[in-house]
């Protein structure tokens, strides 16, 4: 093989192996770190994994927001406005745009009692903008 051919071949091989490794590692990491998104009916029906972090969305049920008597803990219900409702537990300050009757996405884990322990609560950021997940849900629910 001519030297420049060998050189080119080694570059191509290097790129190929490097690229493949990157893709494989990335896909592996994606599989492990992906957060699936669930709606209230899926949470209630129980086919949601409890061992990993997930995202869930729903409307904050009116009158359900209850602050603890001590500490910053708060409990509220998320509902799809039809018949599925689940409780969310969150320790911390709720975001600015969190309001009863409005959509919210929570990030965290579902425990075995069906209560969602949220590590983050995301509300929509202004009245023109809603997270696409929630938009889908509203259309789904309020025909």
């Amino acid at each position, binding site marked *: 093989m001519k030297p420049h051919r060998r050189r080119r071949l080694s570059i191509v091989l290097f790129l190929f192996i490097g690229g493949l490794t*990157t893709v494989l*590692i990335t896909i592996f990491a994606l599989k492990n770190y*992906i957060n699936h998104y669930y709606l209230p009916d899926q949470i209630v029906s129980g086919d949601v994994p409890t061992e990993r972090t997930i995202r869930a969305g729903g409307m904050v049920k009116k009158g359900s927001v209850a602050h603890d008597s001590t500490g*910053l803990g708060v409990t509220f219900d998320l509902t799809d406005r039809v018949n599925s409702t689940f409780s969310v537990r969150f320790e911390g300050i709720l975001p600015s745009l969190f309001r009863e009757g409005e959509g919210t996405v929570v990030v965290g884990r579902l425990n075995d009692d069906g209560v969602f322990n949220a590590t983050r609560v995301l509300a929509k950021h202004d009245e023109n903008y809603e997270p*696409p997940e929630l938009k889908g849900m509203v259309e789904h629910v309020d025909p």
Partner: protein
Amino acid sequence: MSTLIPELGHFSAFLGLMSAVGIALFGFFGANQNRTAWVDMSIRLTKVQVAVLALSFLFLILAFLEDDFSVLYVANNSNTALPWYYKIAGVWGAHEGSFLLWTLVTAVWTVLVATRARHIPLKLHGYVLGTLGVLSVMFLAFLLFSSNPFERLVPNVPIQGADLNPVLQDIGQIIHPPMLYIGYVGFGVTFAFGIAALATGKIDSAWARWVRPWVNIAWLFLTIGIVLGSWWAYYELGWGGWWFWDPVENASFMPWLAGTALIHSLSATEKRGAFKNWTILLTLLTFTLVLMGAFLVRSGVLSSVHAFAVDPQRGLVLLTIFVLVAGGSLVLYAFRAHTLNTQVQYWGVSRELLLLINNALLVVALFTILLGTLYPLGHEWFVGGDEKLSVGEPYFNAMFVPIMLLLSFALAIAPISRWKHTPMRLVVNALLLLGGSAVVALLLPWILADGVHLGVSCAVALAIWIIVTHAIACYRQRKALTLGFIGMSVAHIGFAIAVIGVAVTSVYTESKDARLKVGESIEVSGTQYELVDVQSTESQNYIGERARFDFGVRGSLFPERRYYSIREHITHEAAIAPGIFKDRYITFAGPMENDTWGVEIQDKPFQRWIWFGAVVAGLAALIAMLDKRYRRLSQRDLEIKYSA
């Protein structure tokens, strides 16, 4: 007169479109036919374009200042109660106006290239202007035909506007978007240089020297823009977080990574004529990523803090622009790139090799972020169904942090490396310094804190190593130090400072939530914070409560909770006591039951180092840009050109 302002603004923008068409045509055909007069015409038109677009922008500002709610965009994003400076910032507070600013920034870059780069060959200049003209045409057409900020709301003119989103009523909104746009569109200039190089089929070290200052200045602004965004999120939105791997943050970070790779690759192209193809590809890639970012942010396909209101039709137009620019430039690249390459010899731990490693790592990092950002979209489009996904921070951290540590390794050897080949002795010396840095990085936390965190020690060891090798290299070369070398060293030291900040603040931040009565206190990280009192506060467009916390000998912080009545929107204005070694950060949640007040207090060590390091690196780009060789050699090239 004043009732005509929106029409005048609209008309000016239209004139801007006309001049952009002229810039593109005269630029391209002037270059193609070698007609000096045509290229001169293109140069003249860039001045017209910047003037009319500045006017158009000014008219939109006037419409905001005059509370002209007959203009839909003003009615949606302003209010009579808004202070005048937020009325001006409101001009770029939503999609339409911010895109007008984007087109104005494009025009400013274009006129700068037209007037400040007269020393470059006529053909190259013509093609560069032509390309920028085409970009302007696309942006302005998009602005006028699907995002017109001057659209009237007649006959039902509202008496009052809907107000600017309270989150945007901040100094951050005044400076962050303009900086970012200047950086983004600045990479349009380097894109144009890439296209022009492909069109002329000539790329040499002179070309690299002409491009480098433009890359550096664009990179400077993009860096500052991103830092401002991070800082703003930190105090306004972030609850003390400074980076969320939010899709839109990623959209700004990916071009930054590509631009960083470009700066490094250009250095090899300039000095050694190496990586020519790759450099060109990076000029194209960087701006393609900018446009992709614009599409992601402005189409509403992503779930993000930054996303503008959703409009699928606009998204489609932006996607078209993206596909045209990316596809067109890549096709051109595919046909022309092979004409450029040259063979360059280097072996061992040469500077070329290190730059290659740098580029490989940056591109891999970019690629992993790209995959993480687009994966949910791809899943939705190709798999479909009801299942929705998102990729969280753990993924990005797991991918990005190791890559950056590897990069630090290559970066620390950079200042002692030589072109072609570096003597082994120098490399060994550098590695010995790593040993010393590691000892310091392990001892420091052992003395100062209770335990050693291995990850932090690793990062800090690498950072100290980088700082030491660069300082030594600068000292050794003190008699023949160029601004280029100083720039590189300062940039790398800035990177090291940021690494220390990221590592320490991520691991050692302490945070506590509590409900306090007035007079009660809470201890965080060894300091007592006492809630002294809570008072009501109000301004033109909000009411709220303001708390006073005392800590230490005479420290006080005043976090607020505000209620903006027009949009019925609550914001939490955190109070921060910044410091070189730690930030104290208090968020005030407002009243709870039983006369208590909700509060979150954080102690964030080394937080400022992140932004300080990044700003230092940004300014380093400016230092390198001022290197004499960019001026002197350009002059010499000019003489050669005219004597030939």
